[in-house]
């Protein structure tokens, strides 16, 4: 019955003009593809931005690792702090003053 319901939900979306994925393992609108990459590729590498102009005037710029936003974690005074961005003493307005142990 669940399969039927998912298929019907897809049908509704097609009526509305929106192509929609058939749910994968119970996750509506989500599909999984498998495309392994080189395992030795450095995930922290940042390259130069390259821009490509299409005949219709569209420009697509490959960011090549620029603008990636890292979430970092820091254990300080026995408790875990997280920050999206750099973690240092300047972590943020609250956390840099914050301590569980006084």
């Amino acid at each position, binding site marked *: 019955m669940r399969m039927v319901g998912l298929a019907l939900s897809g049908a509704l979306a097609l009526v509305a003009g929106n192509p929609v994925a058939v749910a994968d393992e119970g996750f509506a609108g*989500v599909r999984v593809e498998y495309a392994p990459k080189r395992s030795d590729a450095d995930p922290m590498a940042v390259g130069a931005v390259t821009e490509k102009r299409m005949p219709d005037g569209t420009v697509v710029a*490959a960011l090549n690792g620029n603008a990636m936003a890292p979430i970092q974690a820091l254990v300080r005074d026995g408790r875990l702090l997280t920050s999206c961005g*750099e973690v240092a003493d300047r972590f943020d307005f*609250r956390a840099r*003053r914050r301590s569980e142990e006084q």
Partner: protein
Amino acid sequence: MARFYLLLAAMLVATPVPAAEMVIVNTNAGGAGLNDPSPARPEAGVNGGTTLGAQRLRVLQRAAEIWAAALDSPVPIRIEARMVELPCSPASNILGQGGPLYMAWNFSNAPRRDTAYPIALANALARRDLDNGADIRIDLNISVDNGCMDGTVGWWYGLDPADPGPADRYPLLPVVLHEIAHGLGFLSSVNPGTGEYYVSMPTLWSNYLYDQQAGKHWRNMTAAERAASARNDPYLVWTGDNVNRQLSNWLLGILRLDIEGVRGGERRLSVATAEFGGSIPSSGGPAAAVVTVNDGIAAAGDPPGTFTDGCEYPFLNGNRLQGRIALVDRGSCTFVEKARNAQEQGAVALLVANNVEGTPPTMGGVASDITIPVLGITREEGARLKRSPAGVASAQPSRDETLSGTRAGCMRMYAPASISSGSSVTHFHSEATPSLLMEPGVSPGLGDQLDMTLDLLRDLGWVIRAGGPPATANDCAQRPLP
């Protein structure tokens, strides 16, 4: 036949319909990361994956499902994802990272010319796949599962938003939701240190980022002006209409403490809140006399304890705390211990006075048994309260009309005085209360909320299916965009 159509219609109504297709492109090699064949962890009951890799993948799928239900896009949104070794040390590590792979401008149907859009949004607006590949990249640190981080033995792969897992696990779901938001366009694409755009075109984000002191949007600034503005707290704000119309629906007023019976007359203080304990509603907290705790022992230490630090239980004057607000000094033991002692003695709230000059202490800790509000005040204000005759000074925490994390009706953006790369400018301000998904600190307790993140994406041009509560106009929403 009519019955069939009625049944069909009923099923269509009952089934949530995603309006965007999210494709997770699993780039891990066989047997590794998202394909790890090791047996599933005990949290399988709330996840359903039968292997470790499947459990990890299911968290990504659940996050993608949440976004798929919220967004409308005629073009599939492709997320390149893997679990990989990222820098990690016992003291500090990267949990993960995410962002768009491309930006595009001057595409067909672009609402603004000469403006760089994150690729997933550009695809949705152009109604075609401009890059013919993945749009977003997410890397998650597999080393967290190898115990590389002190105090944490691994990721928590539960899918229940109400259950962030045990204290020694870090919930993966809010991290993935946060990173997908960056990939969808919740980022400046500006180097906050130099003010330069990463691409050769002004970014869409710069149309909405406004410096109230400079009186300019980032779009109209030089790079040097943007670099200065990136550190210009509290004046850096977001001027998007959708975000600012929702402020009152999401945020609480700034917390204040109104006190009476002290030298100098009535006072309204700025206070800090603890990460634990009871919250203060918009209508205000308990009003009661303030009693300075006397625990009878000044423990040895460096610095030494005080008779009024609230670390020893029971208090000598515990019988006077019933229904009162307890006042203690910072120091000697944890904030949680002080709060627990005061609560046991019947106090209705706890004030913690700093033991050094400066701002009120902001207090960390986890304690589900603490139900009284715990507030920090400055050392000077603590001393002022102590000088008042016992039982005369009274206090009441309240909420200011100004909403937390806002200024002049606009949502403030994160702009600390020291640039934090990847953090500055690209997040809502960390003083927003309650916590939002796109603050720089990702709270494990966020669960699966998307909150005002949806409204910001709507400002950028995304068609958002999730309906918010009725919007309220304000001054910031009236500000013309460049």
